[in-house]
């Protein structure tokens, strides 16, 4: 049989297979659970040669209802107001930037990693609007107020790069447990230097008396490291 005829016949068979059984012929992996009934209705989401316009998504998933209402409710489904707030805050209108309905070989790939850049800058600056429940209930985080980005990145909560050396360098004998100095639970602003045997109030009073230093409670006001000679003039009356 001539190659051209074989080509045309195969083309017709392939096209026929695609048209008659798109699920078998073309579907790149199973659909996500909520859209399983659309597996043979490609054009419910796809516009020919234009991909998947967001209007195809928002005609069912109105941005105001995402996380709050569903047309298909699996067992155990509950409203997620945080999800609703997140979607209302998105500056992107392209749903496919995060979602894809074809699970493919790896079902985890049905949702792409959320990027904070998808949020408007004003929303991105207000971490607590979405993450308030993540904030540890301790003094350090209470004092940090809403400036999470001072220590954390949007990649992960840990590691956080709080710069303790701005307040006191934790070197030599000072690389100790937090509670050695921060002896008031829940407050990292309060501290004491008398938590170890090296610094006793009596010793410190004696050493500083001849320097004319009377404020012996806020040591870090003058000393920001283990260098005892860096005190300077700040503590003098």
């Amino acid at each position, binding site marked *: 049989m001539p190659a*051209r005829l074989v*080509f*045309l016949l*195969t*083309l017709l068979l392939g096209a026929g297979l695609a048209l008659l059984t798109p699920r078998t012929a073309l*579907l790149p*992996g199973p659909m996500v659970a909520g859209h399983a009934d659309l597996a043979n209705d490609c054009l419910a989401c796809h516009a020919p040669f234009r991909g998947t316009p967001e209007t195809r998504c928002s005609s069912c998933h109105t941005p105001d209802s995402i996380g709050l209402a569903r047309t298909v409710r699996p067992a155990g489904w509950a409203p997620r107001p945080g999800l609703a707030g997140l979607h209302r805050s998105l500056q992107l209108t392209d749903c496919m930037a995060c979602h894809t309905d074809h699970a493919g070989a790896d079902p985890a790939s049905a949702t792409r990693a959320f990027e904070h850049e998808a949020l408007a800058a004003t929303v991105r600056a207000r971490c607590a609007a979405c993450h308030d429940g993540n904030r540890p209930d301790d003094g350090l985080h209470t004092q940090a107020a809403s400036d999470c980005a001072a220590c954390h990145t949007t990649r992960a909560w840990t590691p956080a790069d709080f710069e303790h050396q701005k307040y006191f360098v934790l070197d030599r004998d000072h690389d100790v447990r937090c509670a050695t100095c921060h002896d008031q639970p829940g407050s990292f602003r309060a501290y004491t230097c008398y938590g170890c045997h090296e610094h006793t109030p009596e010793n410190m009073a004696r050493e500083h008396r001849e320097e004319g230093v009377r404020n012996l409670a806020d040591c870090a006001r003058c000393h920001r490291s283990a260098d005892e000679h860096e005190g300077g003039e700040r503590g003098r009356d």
Partner: protein
Amino acid sequence: MHRSLLVRQVLPSAALFAGLILAGIVFDYALHRAGLAWVGLYLGPIGTILLLLSLLYSLRKRKLIRAGSPKVLLSLHESLAWAGSLCLVLHSGIHFSAVLPWLALGAMLIVVASGLTGAVLLRRAVEVVKAQEATPDSEDNRVLNAATVDLMRRWRVVHMPLNAIFAALALVHVAAVAFFWHW
């Protein structure tokens, strides 16, 4: 003679085919391990371009182009077709999902096997022609030459329709991707 045929002509072609499958599995595993499985998506168009470039030999052979030495273009045809096929094996991701792309992949592998068979026959034909040139009066060589030429002709009768099947299935796949693609 038989041992020589096997070692010099059949084994290299068989090794190239096995190497294609093995390289596909190894590179696919490496891409997944490195979190670079997405690269496979782009290997589709790259592999297709390599395969199209490999057809320069076919154009030259049919005198549709005049430039280029047929010998060099044949060597390029073999190399580019192998490399392009590897790209498309990786593009498939060695995952089973839609049937049409898999039919296209299967057809491509059959074409590669057919092409490698053609390479064996061609090398055999070259040796037979050389042998006949050395001893033009040998009846055995004359018969062998005629048989080899006939075998090459028969091979083309099979190879071309196989190519046509692969091209048609690949075209349907590309058309479907273009139709549904989120541009």
